């Protein structure tokens, strides 16, 4: 039983320390500053922010036609 408690307590401590280390690293490395860049990474000129990219077929009341080349 002692082994179990040691293991669980030990894992929690190690996990906690790793998390703290990770957080300190992330702040130092500037990860926290780049958050909005991350959220924006799925948009570009062809599918920009502000344009919907889905609609019901044949209903013609909304949505974005892509800006790309037409065949």
């Amino acid at each position: 039983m002692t082994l179990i408690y040691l293991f669980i307590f030990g894992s929690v401590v190690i996990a906690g320390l790793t998390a703290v280390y990770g957080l300190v690293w992330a702040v130092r490395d500037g990860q926290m500053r780049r958050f909005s860049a991350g959220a924006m990474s799925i948009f570009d000129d062809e599918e920009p922010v502000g344009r919907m990219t889905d609609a019901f077929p044949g209903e013609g009341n909304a949505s974005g036609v892509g800006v790309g080349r037409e065949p």
Partner: protein
Amino acid sequence: MNRAVFLYVGVLAVVLASFSGLVSLPQLQLGTIQPLVDANGNQYPAPPTGLVAEGRSVYISLGCIYCHSQQVRPPGFGADIERGWGTRRTVARDHIWDAPPLLGTMRTGPDLANIGVRQPSDNWHLLHLYNPVMTSPGSIMPPMPFLFDERPVEVQVPYDALAFPPEWSTPGRVVIPTRRAKALVAYLKSMDKSHPVPEVVP
């Protein structure tokens, strides 16, 4: 978060941690439990053999676990003991020979951990398997006629033919359990976890 190495390490670490905690540690703690042996050399629990072992395979094959559990919860947690489903809660020692344990997660039908104590009659089990409503009115358990052979009655009624209650009798026909049915009944009758164990203080 752009450093892939963090993802790798973190993802693997969390699953290894839960594996250690939920599998490895319990195996270390419970893997060495031995059966109890009394003065006459009788083991509890005894490893299943013969027809009982065969019956366990039939139980698995027919999917009985999807309606029946095999675990008695502690007194004061639910009403398992008050319902007569056992005289004590079931413990890890009860399952040391089980591969896999058939604890179940549904009680569409009653718990079976001690069904051998509650229903010691072969004929009751056979009738119940053949057509559950004969013994249990209102039951939704599926009938299992495929576990039996039906034949027109000849000069002598076979010794193992089912004895139907009068309102269900089948004049001119007999119903004989197949080996699968007999094995399953043997398994059900073997289920008795009333043997005292040191883990449960009476």
